[in-house]
């Protein structure tokens, strides 16, 4: 071998040996704390109850509701069509397989939004995309659709429209148009699809 090759050969050898001896790096599969904090401070992860109800009614195939409470609470009551993955189980392989599917938008909910938000943070750290949090959780769900008072007489038309929409949602999910005591005009209620908010639209 001619002498001119000695240096390159030595360089390659040294580099590959150093590569083997390098101290192992932290695993790549997670976000840096700074990036995670940036994501946390942006509120785009929250989806309103109105939007989720609207998408449920339109049978949006990309919506996947995930209940992060424990299975006892899940069996007592859960939102229609939702899947139960308790937080303790969220990083298990089978859960990860479900959550890494493309083309779905996963909306987490819990009793209010603390637990769902924490789940979101854990998964975001692991680099998951297309995950959202139901703002207010089940408490907000019932507040908006089941215990909401009608708007005042003086309220503007937008508020009335929203109320109408919510009554429609209530009717859809209870499935009993005439039974409810305070709604004699239940049949007339038409569910008008609300404009989709951009919050859950993103994703690459």
């Amino acid at each position: 071998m001619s002498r001119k090759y000695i240096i390159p050969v030595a360089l390659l050898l040294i580099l590959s040996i150093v590569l083997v001896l390098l101290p192992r790096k932290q695993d790549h599969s997670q976000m840096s704390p700074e990036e995670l904090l940036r994501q946390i401070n942006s509120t785009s992860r929250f989806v309103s109850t109105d939007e989720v109800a609207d998408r449920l009614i339109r049978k949006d195939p990309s919506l996947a509701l995930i209940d992060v409470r424990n299975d006892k609470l899940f069996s007592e009551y859960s939102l229609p069509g939702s899947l139960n993955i308790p937080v303790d189980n969220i990083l298990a392989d089978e859960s990860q397989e479900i959550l890494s599917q493309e083309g779905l938008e996963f909306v987490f909910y819990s009793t209010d939004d603390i637990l769902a938000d924490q789940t979101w943070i854990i998964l975001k750290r692991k680099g998951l995309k297309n995950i959202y949090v139901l703002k207010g959780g089940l408490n907000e769900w019932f507040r908006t659709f089941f215990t909401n008072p009608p708007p005042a007489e003086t309220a503007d038309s937008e508020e009335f429209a929203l109320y109408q929409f919510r009554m429609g949602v209530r009717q859809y999910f209870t499935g009993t148009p005439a039974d409810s005591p305070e709604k004699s005009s239940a049949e007339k209620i038409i569910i008008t699809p609300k404009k989709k908010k951009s919050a859950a639209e993103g994703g690459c």
Partner: protein
Amino acid sequence: MKELNRTDRLTIATTMLAIILIIGLVTMRKPAVEFAIPATEVAKLATDPSYVIPVTILAEMMKNNDPALALIDVRNPVKFRQEHIPSALNIPSADLLSEQNLNLMKNLAEEDKKIIIYGGNHLEANGSWLILKQLGINNLYILDAGLEGYNLYRQNLSVNLPFEDVKSERPAYNYNEILNSFGTSSSAQETGKTEPVRITKKAKKSAAEGGC
């Protein structure tokens, strides 16, 4: 002459490779902050309610002038100036991970202070709390219901009303009871069920084939 040129080229290529790697080594910086707790552990933190400090306990500590108390407000400085809980320190959540603030918190934790962080409502400080917890800062607690809860407590106190701590993640209603009042049982809800999530294997996108 030709042979010499070849050698030169080889030397140049080798030197360039070496220079690139040296630049890489020099520009490589250790990340300033790193997670101290693996993600699997964090899931356990999330379900542990002992980190939540109810407003009444905070009020008790404030009344006793508890020296261990370190209150931190993570809202932005404008909101902090408008109103905040007395004795609170303002560390906006955007600057949470700056070296100075992190050192401050670490010192507080080492002094065995009880660091209680709060935001405007029950949710606002949640992210800040969990991220600091993941960085391995001990003695870190979160104020239940945030400033909202504190203000409610003060209001009730001023008119001598009893105050009940709002616990996060506690159902505000009995869901099935409400549904029943509308004439449905939870099982009747099945009619509204949508398709459950379909599980498919993840497949990477195909890219153009390469070749020589």
